[in-house]
C-alpha cells in the first residue's frame, strides 16, 4: 500500500497546488513543499521500520524474497494487466532520491517561478509521481503508462516556463521520448505475445515474463526496442541530442528533475529489464552497448569542454557520466551493477546541485554565458565554494559519492572487458578539465565589470544554503561510508544477476 500512497499523495497534491494557485500565487509552492515532505517523511518512516538484513541473504532464483513490498490489484483483466507495484533495494534508493530531489526542485523554483505558479507545481508534482510510478511498476503495461505520464508534465514545464528556445526544446524532448517509447510498447507487446503463445496466459507482469524463451533473432529485436527507449532517456550517444536543448531551456526546477531523476529512469530500465528479460540477446549485444557507453563518456566530455553555455556544459557532462552507467549495466557483474546504481544516485545529486546553481546564477544575471562571467568568488563566496564542491564531486574526487560509483563501474568493467575499462578511464581524466573550466571561468579570474554592480549578484539565500548543504552531506556520506547503501542494493542486484545467469545456462544447455 505504501507504494500506492507515495504516488497518490503526489497526484492529489498536484491538483491541490493547482487549485491553490487560484487563491494566491504564493500558496502553490507551500502546498507542493508540504506534499513532497509528507511523502518523503512517510517513506522514510516506512523504510526505518524495515529490517533490510532479512532480505540480504535472499537472492533466490524466483526473486520472491527480494521484493520488500508488493501490491497488486486488477486493472484490465481482459489483457492480464494489473496494478502491480513492487519495491526492492534498488527501487527504494531511487525513490528516496526522487523525493529528495523533489524537495530540492521546489526550493530551486521557490523564487524563480512567479507566473502561473499553480500549474507549475501541478506539473512538477505529477512528474515526480510519474517517476516513482516508473520505478515501482512491475507490470509492463503499467510501467509504460507511467513512462508516458511523466512526459507530458515535463514537456509543459519546459514549454511554458522555459527560456528563449523553450518550445523547440520541449518538442524535441517530447518527440524523442515518445517515439522511442512507442518502440518499447511494440517490444512489450511482442514479448507478451510470445509469452502468450508459450504459456497460453496473457500477462504483462514482469515476474511472469521473466521466463519467456525468445529465440535469438526475435529476442534481439525485442531487446533493441527496449534498449532504444532507455538509451534515449539515459541519454547515450547517438540518441542524446534532445538533452542539451531540453536542459538548457528548462526552468531550473525542470533541469534539476530532468538531470536528477528523469535520466535515471532510463538507467533503471536498462538495469531492470534488459538483462533479466533477454539474457542471451543482451549478452550478445553487450560489446556494442559498452562501446556506445565509452563513446558517450568521451564524446560527452569533449563536447562539454567546448561549451560556453553553463547549463549546456553541465548537460553534456551528464551524457558523459551516464555513459558509465551504460557500461556498468552491460558489464553485467555485481560489482559493476552496484557501481552503476551508486553512480545513478551520486550523479542524481551532483548534477541536480549543479543545475540548481547554474539556474540560480541565471536567475540573478540573466545569462548563462561563461564568457561573460568571471571573478564571482569575491562577490559571492558561498556560491563559489559550493559550486567548486559539486564540480569536484562531479569530476570524481575520492571521498565523494561519484568516485565510489565510477570506480566500481570501472573495476567491474575491467572484469568484463579491459579495453572498455581502459578507454572509459580516459573519461575520468577529461572530467577535471571541463569541471575546472567552469570553476575558473565563472568564479576566478577578472571580475566582469558588467556584474560588478553590487546588488545584482547576490549570494545564496538561506533556503538555498539549506538545500545545498543537505546535498553536500549526502554526497560526503555516500563517498565515505557507502556500505549501508551497498548492503541495501545487494540482494536486489544479486537476484537480478543470478536470474539472468540461470537463464543463460538453461539456454546454453
Amino acid at each position, binding site marked *: 500500500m505504501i507504494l500506492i500512497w507515495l504516488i497518490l499523495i503526489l497526484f492529489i497534491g498536484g491538483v491541490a497546488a493547482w487549485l491553490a494557485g487560484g487563491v494566491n500565487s504564493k500558496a502553490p509552492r507551500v502546498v507542493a513543499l508540504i506534499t513532497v515532505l509528507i511523502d518523503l517523511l512517510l517513506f522514510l518512516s516506512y523504510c526505518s521500520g524495515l529490517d533490510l538484513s532479512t532480505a540480504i541473504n535472499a537472492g533466490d532464483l524466483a526473486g520472491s524474497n527480494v521484493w520488500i513490498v508488493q501490491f497488486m490489484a486488477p*486493472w*484490465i*483483466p*481482459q*489483457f492480464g494487466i494489473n496494478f502491480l507495484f513492487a519495491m526492492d533495494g534498488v527501487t527504494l534508493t531511487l525513490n528516496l532520491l526522487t523525493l529528495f530531489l523533489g524537495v530540492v526542485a521546489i526550493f530551486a523554483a521557490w523564487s524563480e517561478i512567479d507566473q*502561473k505558479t499553480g500549474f507549475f507545481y501541478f506539473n512538477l508534482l505529477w512528474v515526480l509521481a510519474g517517476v516513482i510510478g516508473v520505478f515501482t511498476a512491475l507490470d509492463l*503495461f503499467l510501467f*509504460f*503508462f507511467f513512462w*508516458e*505520464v511523466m*512526459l*507530458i508534465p515535463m*514537456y*509543459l514545464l519546459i*514549454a*511554458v516556463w522555459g527560456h528563449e528556445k523553450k*518550445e523547440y526544446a*520541449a*518538442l524535441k524532448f*517530447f*518527440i524523442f521520448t*515518445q*517515439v522511442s517509447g*512507442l*518502440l518499447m*510498447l*511494440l517490444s512489450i*507487446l*511482442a514479448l507478451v*505475445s510470445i509469452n502468450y503463445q508459450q504459456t497460453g496466459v496473457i500477462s504483462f507482469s514482469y515476474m511472469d515474463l521473466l521466463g519467456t524463451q525468445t529465440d535469438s533473432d526475435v529476442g534481439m529485436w525485442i531487446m533493441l526496442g527496449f534498449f532504444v527507449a532507455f538509451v534515449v532517456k539515459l541519454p547515450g550517444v547517438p540518441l542524446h541530442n534532445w538533452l542539451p536543448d531540453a536542459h538548457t531551456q528548462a526552468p531550473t526546477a525542470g533541469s534539476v528533475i530532468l538531470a536528477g531523476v528523469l535520466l535515471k529512469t532510463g538507467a533503471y530500465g536498462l538495469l531492470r529489464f534488459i538483462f533479466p528479460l533477454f539474457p542471451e540477446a543482451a549478452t550478445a549485444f553487450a560489446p556494442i552497448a559498452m562501446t556506445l557507453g565509452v563513446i558517450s563518456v568521451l564524446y560527452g566530455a569533449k563536447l562539454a569542454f567546448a561549451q560556453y553555455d553553463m547549463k549546456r556544459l553541465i548537460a553534456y557532462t551528464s551524457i558523459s557520466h551516464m555513459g558509465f552507467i551504460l557500461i556498468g549495466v552491460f558489464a553485467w557483474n555485481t560489482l559493476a551493477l552496484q557501481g552503476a546504481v551508486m553512480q545513478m544516485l551520486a550523479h542524481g545529486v551532483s548534477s541536480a546541485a549543479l543545475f540548481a546553481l547554474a539556474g540560480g546564477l541565471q536567475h540573478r544575471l540573466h545569462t548563462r554565458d561563461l564568457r561573460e562571467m568571471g571573478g564571482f568568488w569575491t562577490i559571492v563566496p558561498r556560491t563559489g565554494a559550493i559550486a567548486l564542491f559539486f564540480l569536484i564531486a562531479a569530476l570524481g574526487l575520492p571521498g565523494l559519492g561519484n568516485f565510489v560509483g565510477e570506480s566500481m563501474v570501472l573495476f567491474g568493467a575491467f572484469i568484463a572487458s579491459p579495453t572498455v575499462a581502459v578507454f572509459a578511464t580516459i573519461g575520468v581524466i577529461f572530467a577535471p578539465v571541463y569541471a575546472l573550466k567552469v570553476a575558473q571561468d565563472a568564479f576566478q579570474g577578472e571580475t566582469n565589470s558588467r556584474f560588478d554592480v553590487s546588488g545584482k549578484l547576490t549570494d545564496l539565500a538561506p533556503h538555498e544554503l539549506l538545500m545545498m548543504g543537505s546535498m553536500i552531506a549526502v554526497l560526503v556520506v555516500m563517498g565515505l561510508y557507502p556500505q549501508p547503501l551497498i548492503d541495501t542494493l545487494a540482494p536486489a542486484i544479486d537476484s537480478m544477476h543470478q536470474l539472468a545467469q540461470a537463464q543463460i545456462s538453461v539456454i546454453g544447455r
Partner: protein
Amino acid sequence: MNLTTGDILALLPIILVTATSVVVMLMIAFKRNHSLTALLTVAGLAAAAFAGMNQLGQPSLQVTPLLVIDQYSGFFNLVILSTSIAVAIFCHGYFDKREGLPEELYILLLTTTLGAQVMVSANHFVSFFLGLEILGISLFALIAYPVTTLTKSGLPLEAASKYLVLSGVSTGFLAFGMALIYASSGAMSLVDFKVALSSSGLEYYAVGGIAMMVAGLAFKLSLVPFHMWTPDVYQGAPAPITAFVATVSKAAVLAFLLRAFALLDAYQYESVVFVIVALAMASMLVGNLLALLQTNVKRILAYSSIAHLGYIMVAFLAAGSSDLKSDVAPQLLAVEAVAYYIVAYIVTTLAGFGIISLFSSAGAAPDETRDFDQIDDYEGLFWTHPWLASVFTVTLLSLAGIPLTIGFIGKFYILAAGVHNAMWSLLFVLVVGSGIGLFYYLRLIIVMARNADGAVAPASGSNLSLPSGGRWVIGVLALLIVWLGVNPSPLIDFIRAMAQTMG
C-alpha cells in the same frame, strides 16, 4: 414478405428515428421554435437509443433480405445515436443566436442518422447503397445549411459543392462495383456473394467490382489518395456538422466494410489486402505530414482524422490475418481493436469539434463570418478559458495516443492486434506517423499555453457567453476520454461480447 412483431421490434430504433423526423417536420410547419425542435430531436434520438439498448442481448435477426439486426449493428447503432444526440446539442448552441431559420436542420440531422443506421445493419448491397445515399444527400444539405448566415466567407457552399461532386463520383464507383459483382456472381446480398465466391473463386469481374467498391469506400473514409475533399469540407462546414461528418459517416462506412470483409472472408485475396495496406500506409504518412502545414485548426483535425482512419485500417487488416494459427483469438482481438478505436476516435473527435463549435457559437466568436478555427484564435486560451482549454488539451493528447486517455487504449489495442499478427511494416509506419502527429498536436497545446497579447485574467464570467448545453456535453465527453482511458475494462467487456457474436 410479412413483418412479424419481432421484426418490427428489432427495427424499432430505425423506425423511431424516421418517425421523429416526420414529427419534427410537422411541428415546424405549425410552430417555429428552435429550442423545442432541438429538444424533440434529442428526445427522439434518445428514445431510439433506448430501444436499441433493450434489444442488445437478443439473438441476431435477419429482417427482410436487406437488414440484419445483431449485436454488431446494435453496438454501432448506439454509438451513432449517441453521437447524433451530441451533435444535435452542439447545433443548438451553434445556430441559436444566428440569423436564419435553424429548425429544418434537425430534420436533416435525423435523416443522416437514419442513413447511418441502415448502413450498419446492411448485409446487402442495396440496403447499404440506400443508407449511404440517405446519409450523403442529407449531409450535403447540412454542410451548406448556414449559407444564409455565413455568406461572406462562402466556405460552406464551396464545401457542400465539393462534397456533392466527390461524393457523387465515389457513389458512382460504388454502384459500378456492385454492378460488376452482380454481373459476375448474380448476387447482391453478401451471403449469396460469399457462396458464389467460394464456388467459383475470384473472377476478373469480381476483382474489378471489389476494387471499385474499395475505391468508393476509401473516398467516404477519406483514405489517401482519396482524401482530397476532406480538409475543404471539414473547414467549410459549420463546426458541429464537421463533427458529424468526421464521426458518424466514417463509423457507418467502416462498420459495413468490416462486416463485408469478415463475412466474405475477403482477407484471403492478397490483391485486395495489398491495396488496403497501401491505403493505410499512405493515409498514416500523408495525413500526418500534411497536417504539419496547416494553420487552420479544423484542417489540422481533418488531416489528423485521415491519419486516424489509417491507424484503424491497421487493426482492420489484422482482423484478416488469422490464417497463421488455428485459434480465432487474433481475429477477435482485431475486431475489438477496430470497434474500440472507433469509439475512442468518435469520443475524441466529437470533443475536439465540439469545443470548436462552442467557441464559434454566435456571440462568442471573434469573427461572425467564420468559425473559431484559426490557430491564432487559440493563443492564450489556457489562461482565458482554463477548463475548456484543459479539455481541448486532453482531447489532443488523446488523439496523439498519450496515456490517461481513451486514445491511448485505442492505440494500444491496435498495436496489440498488429503485433499479434506480426504486421511489422504497418506498425513501423504507424509509429513514424504517430511521431509526426505529435508535432501538430503539441503545437496547438503550446499555442494555448502561450501568453496571449493583452489577455485578460481568467474571469469566471468569460465562459458565460458559451452555450451551456454544449458545455455539458463537452464535460461528459471529457469524463469519457479520461475514464475510459484509465478504466477501459467495462467497454472492453461490452465490445468483446459484441465481437464474439460476430465471429
